């Protein structure tokens, strides 16, 4: 443990002797629209700029029908053969996930359907913890993500997001903002760099368990 004591000792000796109190961080959310619907509209707009798709259900449309509508020509196989892992009661899926799954084993998933813990209007981000993912790796190894988001669970901005207690309680908390992306080859934007190729958000109030 000597490296530890040496480093801490050097830091103690060398740290600048200045009175520098931690500032208070304002919420900066006065200009945000009030009400779940208007916040959801802003969310949808920001999500689109990050490459995600907002897909509200048409009257009587099922979530299964949306999956087919949005992803049938993207899965690269007949839609009936698509491997669908669902963590939400609204969609049955055909590939159950359990906490004891070896993470690499979920690489066969074409579409993962998850519920977001909350959303952030400022950036169009959805948040998951291990509770929503079951197997964390599925959110990255699946080819496509479909996310149910309760419009009542959209916060205005980052400051509001970080006031939630998830970061203190969950082992893993992640914001997804659109699908995986890269511009590492001559600045050309490519979706689906290493992780999911597409991300679709469906507004859907949470059903009581």
């Amino acid at each position, binding site marked *: 443990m000597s490296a530890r004591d040496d480093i801490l000792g050097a830091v103690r000796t060398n740290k600048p002797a200045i009175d520098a109190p931690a500032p208070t961080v304002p919420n900066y959310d006065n200009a945000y629209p009030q009400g779940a619907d208007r916040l959801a509209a802003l969310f949808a707009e920001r999500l689109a700029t990050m490459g995600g798709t907002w897909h509200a259900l048409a009257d009587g449309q099922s979530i299964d029908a949306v999956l087919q509508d949005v992803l049938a020509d993207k899965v690269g196989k007949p839609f009936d053969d698509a491997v669908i892992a669902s963590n939400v009661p609204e969609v049955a899926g055909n590939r159950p996930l359990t906490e004891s799954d070896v993470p690499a084993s979920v690489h066969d998933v074409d579409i993962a359907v998850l519920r977001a813990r909350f959303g952030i209007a400022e950036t169009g981000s959805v948040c998951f913890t291990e509770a929503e993912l079951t197997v964390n*790796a599925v959110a990255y190894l699946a080819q496509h993500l479909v996310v149910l988001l309760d419009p009542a669970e959209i916060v205005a901005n980052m400051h509001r997001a970080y006031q939630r207690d998830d*970061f203190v309680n969950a082992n893993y908390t992640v914001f997804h903002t659109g699908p995986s992306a890269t511009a590492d080859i001559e600045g050309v934007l490519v979706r689906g760099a290493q992780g999911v190729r597409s991300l679709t958000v469906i507004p859907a109030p949470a059903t009581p368990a």
Partner: protein
Amino acid sequence: MSGNEPNPAATLQRATPEAQPRPAKAADGKRVDHARSAKQFLNAPEHAKSHDTRVWAMRTKRDKQAHTIEEWEELRELASQIKTHTLAHLDTYLEQFEANAKANGIHVHWAADGAEHNRIVHEIFTEHGVKRVIKAKSMLMEECGFRHYMDSVGIEIVETDLGERIQQLDGEDPSHIVVPPVHKMRSDVARLFAEQLGSDPDNDDAHYLAGAQRDATRPLILDADAGMTGANFAVAETGGFVVCTNEGNADLSANVPNLHVASIGIEKLVPRVEDMGVFIRLLSRSALGSPITQYTSHFRAPKQGGEMHIVLVDNGRSKRLGMEKFWSSLKCIRCGACMNTCPVYRRSGGLSYGATYAGPLGLILNPTFDAHRYSNLPFASTLNGSCTNVCPVKINIHEQIFGWRQVLAENGHLPWTKKTALSAAGKVLASPKGYRVAIKTTNSALKHLPRWALYNRMNAWGEGREMPSPPDNGTFHDWYRRNRLKNQAKTPNEGDSQ
């Protein structure tokens, strides 16, 4: 050229793409000759132009993002204050972070330098029989020479960031901290992937190339024994850390194998979760001009059935903390904005700096690692202050660059051309008034001096580039006095710092 004419240059480019410039690297113990390497880079005009365009595009997008946020300047000030506060209490926050991380079941290690970091990680890998590691991009691990070390002990490292993977396959260092292969053109990547991954050498479409890499890397990811990430921030209050990527590759590295090792520089600490709001809002907007990275990942404890290690690395940071003029460089959040805005970086390419950190932050960080080797770097600047203006944590970068020139001169690290130039520059820059007079003289001198006086060996920045033409209306100060000051009741003293 009109639209109807065939473009012989374009046809030629397809047939024989310009070869990728590879600036010479200084041998061990030798001084990096930035100006010479930059010239080698500029000798490939298509690459030089592509680099300049792409890097400037990031700067332009950054400005657009900044302008959409009314409180942008307040956020920069808050970020700066949070970092100052943290660094002034760094020992306490490190201890708090360690205690919380341990309570969450994370193994915490401390490394004084890169060699110790590599040894510690190697030990963890040996214990677990690790043969292959998937790794996210980490500038700290670059500092430590981690990949080279692992090569030498026979552990395979697979970079999962596309840009870093390109550089790994090419046996080259990253040239930009955010976009490692920003100096490469797609023709370079097509050639490299054809050689290394067996892709079609004639297809240089970015989507095709990224797809080829995805297909080639995926089996390696599924089969890895351990994952490594760096960290953008470490939160003392939770004992957790935050990693930002656009590809989701840090999440793959951390979540697919059971063993996760994170290397974290001791300056990455922030006190509270709520501080993250400030930094996440600033980071990607400053870096790439996007509102946020696609993935912002918070790791607080090992996943179920998994094991997590953190290596806290000093590698010169505690020493830098004691440097009165330079400690605030530890606030750096590695966004790269200062590089994107720097006229010298844009025109010289990152590899010409011969160091882990290129551009303005490189000028102020690298001499703390090796004053002799990097003694030329603080001169690779026009001191125009643009870096300072974009820095999200308000580091006085250009003043520190000038400060390093003085320190290096005092310690006898300068080659003679620099010494001669500096003694004059030092006198002039020491007084604001003298500086303004000098700027005026220089501007008129630029108009009238013969070419040989500007483009000679004494003036490294005259080599390989044309000097900008001086503004017709005199200096900014002249303009300011004419247009602004005359309308103001109170005139600031000439000697006021601006």
